[in-house]
């Protein structure tokens, strides 16, 4: 919104009209007044021209500067009046007439000047020349002398009161004198000729002067200037009337505009007020929006934190789920294996029962009785066998027993072979169980997931034992390993470490620390027990402890752990000096950095 003005631009129209009226009034007044002044000056110049002409004619003025200047100024002034008249489109005809009159007057003045100069010159020269020539020729040429006197008289009268008769007399006398000049002496002849030329010049110029004066008088500008003045006055009056009317109209327009402006300003004021309220409301709304924005931002931060927490929880849950899945997988496989093993064992029991039945069915006691009869009748064995009733039965009996034993031996061998197969099956199932314990094979496992999985597996045990499990720096990398096996093995190692720590209740326990070094082609896990030292015998026992001899829930023998480490193509070493350190190393197939998790 543009600020800084309270009135719309067009509202200046009344002021502009007023200013225009004032300027036009001044301008109009100045223009008309100037034209009138110039006309007045023209009238003065017209009079001055008349006066100058008269003075020049009479010889009172001896130069034409004033006359020429008056004419020049008249032309200039009339030219400016003409410009004004053209601009106002008024009195054009009158101005043109005045211009023509002034032109005629100028031409008359030119003619007057030329003729008057000659007339004045000749008039000045002729009397003295006539006097001098008359004196010179004396009485020698009385006619000529008389003619000179007459010519002088005529020319003088000619200047006083010219007439055709006088002109004729001057002309006739001058020409007669000219004829007589030839009879005079050289010097007088020249003067005589000059005198006659001047007399004729007077004769010629005097009417020209008179005519020029008459023409100059006829060409006075007075009437023309007055006509212009009259037209200008009429036009000015008309224009003034029109101007007054126009001013009245414009004044009314200005008043109307002022009213419109006032109304508009009032509306504008109201609108401005409304706008101000709207602006205030908008400002308030903006402030509220700002608060809400801040709240949203705070909520967003909270949500983000919670999302991060949830993400962490999900991650942990995922780890747990992975572990649980692995455990579930292992349990499922174990259940199936156990079920199969149960079946196998049932079969084994059947086979054993069958063997027992077969063994029980053996006629061993009857063979022993037969053996006893034979030993008792050893001395007469032949007779006995041949003649004694019971003795004669013994060979047949032994034959029957032999055949029966052969049959039973075959049955027992068959049962034994079945038993062997069953045992072999159980071994296979155990191998399957062990394989499933190893998880899903190698895959890219983030180390922290692996550590979390291990930690989740042993956390409760450690908490129950009150032993602190510290985790070293966990590199943010992922490695290609059999995560399930590694986690299982590490958990067992930690349990061993916990068990080892728990066996010596009197020794101060500094907790167990799990650390990891990621090398180019292998991982080196370390599990250290704080300030607990195992003897060589304890180490040997730990490695040699048979399965089943350990307490329930125990992690199994370290031997088994070492065996599992070998299955990972790695190794497990245990050292004990100031404290006990388990070092598990196993290869990996690759390592990649893990991107930072968003905060």
């Amino acid at each position, binding site marked *: 919104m543009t600020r800084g003005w309270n009135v719309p631009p067009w509202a200046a129209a009344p002021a502009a009209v007023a200013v225009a009226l004032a300027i036009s009034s001044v301008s109009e007044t100045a223009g008309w007044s100037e034209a009138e002044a110039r006309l007045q000056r023209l009238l003065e110049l017209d009079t001055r021209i008349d006066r100058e002409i008269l003075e020049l004619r009479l010889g009172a003025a001896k130069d034409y500067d004033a006359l020429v200047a008056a004419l020049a100024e008249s032309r200039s002034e009339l030219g400016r009046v003409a410009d004004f008249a053209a601009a106002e489109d008024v009195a054009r005809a009158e101005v043109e007439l005045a211009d023509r009159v002034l032109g005629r007057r100028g031409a008359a003045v030119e003619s007057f000047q030329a003729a008057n100069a000659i007339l004045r010159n000749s008039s000045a020269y002729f009397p003295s020349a006539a*006097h001098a020539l008359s004196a010179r020729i004396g009485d020698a040429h009385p006619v000529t002398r008389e003619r000179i006197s007459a010519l002088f008289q005529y020319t003088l009268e000619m200047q006083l009161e010219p007439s055709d008769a006088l002109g004729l007399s001057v002309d006739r006398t001058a020409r007669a004198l000219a004829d007589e000049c030839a009879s005079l002496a050289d010097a007088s002849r020249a003067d005589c000729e000059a005198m006659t030329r001047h007399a004729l010049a007077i004769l010629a110029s005097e009417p020209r002067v008179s005519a020029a004066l008459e023409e100059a008088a006829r060409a006075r500008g007075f009437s023309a200037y007055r006509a212009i003045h009259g037209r200008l006055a009429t036009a000015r009056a008309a224009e003034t009337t029109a101007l007054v009317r126009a001013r009245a109209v414009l004044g009314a327009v200005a008043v109307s505009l002022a009213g419109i402006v006032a109304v508009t300003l009032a509306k504008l004021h109201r609108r401005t007020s409304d706008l101000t309220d709207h602006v205030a409301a908008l400002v308030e709304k903006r402030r509220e929006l700002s608060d809400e924005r801040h709240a949203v931002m705070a909520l967003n931060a909270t949500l983000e934190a919670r999302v991060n927490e949830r993400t962490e929880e999900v991650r942990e849950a995922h780890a747990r789920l992975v572990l649980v899945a692995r455990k579930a997988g292992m349990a499922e496989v174990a259940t199936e294996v156990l079920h199969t093993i149960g079946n196998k064992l049932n079969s084994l029991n059947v086979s054993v029962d069958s063997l027992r039945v077969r063994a029980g069915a053996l006629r061993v006691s009857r063979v022993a009785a037969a053996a006893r009869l034979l030993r008792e009748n050893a001395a007469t064995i032949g007779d006995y066998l041949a003649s004694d009733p019971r003795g004669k039965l013994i060979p047949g009996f032994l034959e029957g027993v032999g055949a029966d034993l052969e049959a039973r031996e075959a049955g027992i061998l068959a049962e034994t072979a079945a038993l062997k197969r069953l045992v072999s099956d159980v071994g296979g199932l155990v191998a399957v169980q062990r394989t499933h314990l190893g998880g899903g094979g190698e895959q890219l496992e983030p180390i922290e997931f692996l550590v979390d999985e291990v930690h989740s597996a042993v956390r409760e045990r450690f908490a129950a034992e009150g032993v602190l499990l510290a985790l070293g720096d966990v590199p943010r990398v992922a490695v290609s390993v059999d995560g399930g096996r590694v986690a299982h093995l590490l958990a067992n190692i930690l349990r061993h470490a916990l068990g080892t720590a728990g066996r010596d209740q009197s020794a101060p326990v500094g907790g167990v620390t799990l650390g990891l070094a990621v090398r180019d082609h292998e991982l080196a896990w370390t599990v250290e027990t704080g300030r607990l030292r195992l003897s060589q015998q304890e180490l040997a026992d730990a490695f040699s402890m048979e399965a089943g001899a350990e307490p329930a829930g125990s992690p199994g023998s370290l031997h088994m752990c070492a065996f599992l480490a070998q299955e990972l193509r790695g190794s497990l070493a245990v050292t004990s000096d100031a404290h006990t350190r388990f070092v598990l190393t196993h290869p990996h197939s690759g390592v990649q950095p893990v991107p930072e998790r968003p905060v």
Partner: protein
Amino acid sequence: MPPQSAFSPLALALAAGTCACAASEPATGPLPVAAPHEQAFAGPIRPLVAPTDLDPAAVALGRQLFHDPRLSATGEVSCATCHDLDAGGVDGLPGSVGVNGTVGVVNAPTVYNSGLNLAQFWDGRAATLEEQAGGPLLNPAEMGNSWAEILAYLGETPTYRQKFGEVYRDGVTEGNVRSAIASFERSLVTVDSPFDRWLQGDTTAIPGEAVEGYALFQSYGCASCHQGANVGGNMFQVLGVMRDYFAERGTGIEMDHGRSNATGRASDEHVFKVPSLRLASRTAPYLHDGSVATLEDAVDVMARYQLGREIPPADRARIVAFIGTLAGEPAAAGDAQ
């Protein structure tokens, strides 16, 4: 202005007779010459006064234009070529040489004191200096140019464009070119001549011969036409008042018709503007046709054809001496450099 008084025709005649008597024996003795201050008030000649109402910037611009030959078609002829300000404002030739070596048939009048003339050119066809200024620029025998070319040149010249802009609101126009040149020409007034100083009371300003020459100048009737501050230039007069100059000279030129060329009036045949005598001593040759080589000859020709007289050599010498005292120096507002 001379004292104003009422003269009757008779008194005029008597007064004129008195003056003429003094001139009737011009070479026979000392002339009854009035005292200088009396001459100043009563005589036909008044001192020249430098103009004071000119715009110096317009004068300076006009001076530059006046001397600029690039205003001509060939770039070789300027106003100053024919109106050499160091040579009395003329070129000293009977006919001026224009573009491409064209030789004119009219004697260039001096540009000095031209602002006091009632009209310009021998025939007075230009009423003002502004009107006159365009004539030579376009005349094929003089500068031979056109307004289109002139205005294009001036408009394309930065210094001119700037100066015109400073002097005139509408910059370079034909009217402003005329105005600037006219302003400069009006400033070319020769003041402080010996005769003007004599008129103003300095009795030692001119020699006695010139004083006598002034008296003869009046008595012979020269002052009938050569009068006023410019000693001429303020009227027209027929050449050959007493004798037919043209018939006796022979071989006419167009300009011989004089003012009738401009007005068309038969009465203006052989009528010419009366030239100023202010710088006559420096501006030979004389007459419109440049046919008179010396001032002495000019005095004789004027006496013969205009006054119907023959002036004795002694009187002529005095008159020439007087005419020589009329020449002043360019006023400060002018520029002869």
